[in-house]
C-alpha cells in the first residue's frame, strides 16, 4: 500500500515533467520512471525471502509421512529443480495428465509427504499450507532464472491443451464481453501506464509468461502463474477458475509454448 502510494507519486512527478515536453513524450518518460523505480527495488526483491523459506521447506521433513520433497520429480527426474520450470506445464505419465509447477508440487506433497491433495487445491491462496506452497514454487522457479523456456508439445494431450488454451484465450464472454486477447492480443498496448505484453507470440525475454511467479509490491504478495491467471479472469469479470483447473493449465501451455526461447526473469518484481 505504502509503496503503491510512493509509486503513484513517481507517476505524477514523471507525468508533470513530461507534460511540458509534449504529449507523445509523456508516455515514454513515465515508462522510464517506472523502469527506474523497478531497478531501484530489484536490489532488494522480497521474493528472495520466499525463495529462502522455500529452500528450507524443500529439505524439511514434513507432513503425515514425515518426508522431505527432495525426491519430488518435477519432470526432470527425482529431486531435479534446475530448469524444471522451463518445461512446465507438461504431461506426466504417472498421474496421466497435464500438470504445471503448482499442481505437480501438490502431487509430490500428497505422494511423498502424505498431505491431502484435494485439501491443498482448495486452500485459499496465501492461507495456511498455501503459504508454504508459494514459497516452494518460488524456490523451484528461481532455479531456472536466466534460462530459456521450452514447453513441450510432444504428447498428444499437450497439443490438445495448446488448442484448448488458444480458444480460451480468444473466447469473448462475461459482462464486459472480454477475452484475454482483448488486452494481450496486439503489440504496443497498455492499460494506464502498464505495458501489456502480446501473448499470442513470444513477447520477449522476462515478460509475460517468463515473469511469473513475481513479487507484487502493491500488496506485498508473491503471485504464482495460477494466481495471476485467476486474477486475469477476475478482472474480466468471469467466474474465477478453480486453482489448478484444466482451463488455467491450457492457458499456461498456450502462453508457455508461445514464449519458447524467452529468458526467465523469475522471480520478477511487479508494481
Amino acid at each position: 500500500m505504502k509503496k503503491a502510494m510512493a509509486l503513484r507519486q513517481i507517476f505524477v512527478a514523471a507525468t508533470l515533467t513530461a507534460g511540458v515536453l509534449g504529449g507523445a513524450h509523456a508516455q515514454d518518460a513515465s515508462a522510464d520512471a517506472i523502469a527506474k523505480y523497478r531497478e531501484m527495488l530489484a536490489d532488494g526483491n522480497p521474493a528472495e525471502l520466499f525463495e529462502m523459506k522455500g529452500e528450507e521447506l524443500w529439505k524439511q521433513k514434513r507432513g503425515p509421512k514425515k518426508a522431505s520433497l527432495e525426491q519430488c520429480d518435477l519432470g526432470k527426474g527425482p529431486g531435479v529443480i534446475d530448469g524444471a520450470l522451463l518445461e512446465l506445464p507438461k504431461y506426466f505419465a504417472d498421474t496421466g495428465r497435464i500438470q504445471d509447477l503448482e499442481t505437480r508440487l501438490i502431487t509430490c506433497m500428497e505422494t511423498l509427504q502424505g498431505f491431502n491433495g484435494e485439501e491443498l487445491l482448495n486452500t485459499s491462496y496465501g492461507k495456511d499450507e498455501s503459504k508454504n506452497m508459494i514459497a516452494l514454487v518460488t524456490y523451484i522457479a528461481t532455479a531456472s532464472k536466466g534460462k530459456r523456456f521450452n514447453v513441450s508439445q510432444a504428447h498428444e494431450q499437450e497439443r490438445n491443451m495448446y488448442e484448448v488454451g488458444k480458444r480460451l484465450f480468444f473466447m469473448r464472454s462475461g459482462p464486459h464481453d472480454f477475452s484475454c486477447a482483448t488486452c494481450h492480443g496486439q503489440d504496443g498496448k497498455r492499460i494506464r501506464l502498464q505495458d501489456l505484453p502480446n501473448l499470442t507470440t513470444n513477447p520477449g525475454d522476462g515478460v509475460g509468461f517468463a515473469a511469473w511467479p513475481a513479487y507484487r509490491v502493491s500488496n506485498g504478495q508473491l503471485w504464482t502463474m495460477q494466481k495471476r491467471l485467476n486474477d486475469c479472469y477476475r478482472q474480466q469479470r468471469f467466474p474465477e477458475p478453480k486453482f489448478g483447473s484444466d482451463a488455467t493449465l491450457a492457458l499456461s501451455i498456450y502462453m508457455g509454448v508461445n514464449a519458447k526461447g524467452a529468458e526467465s526473469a523469475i522471480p520478477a518484481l511487479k508494481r
Partner: protein
Amino acid sequence: MADPMRIRAALAGDETTVRVLMAHIMEPGTRKDAAGALIPAHFIQDVEATSNGKSVLKAMFSGSVSQNPFLSFKFKGGAKGDKVVVKWSDNKGDSRSDEATIG
C-alpha cells in the same frame, strides 16, 4: 518464530555495504478489515546491526515502514571475513537475529 532475514555484506575500499531484507508483516495498526474492525499493529520497532560485536547501526522502525522491509547501509572499519549480525524486535515481543560474513 519469525522467518529468516536475508543479509548480504560486501566490502568495497574501506566501506562495507550491508543489505538486509527482513520478513515481516509490518501492520501499521490503522487499517481496518472487511468487517470494519481495526487490525492490531504489528511492526518491527528496534533494529540493531553489529560487526564483530561492535554496534554499527541502530534504528527505530514504525508502522509506516513497508511490509518485508529492505534496509541498506554502509559503515567503515569492516574487514573481509568479519561477521555482521542484524537483530530486530517487534512490538509483540518477537525478535529475530541473523548473520552474514563480509565478502
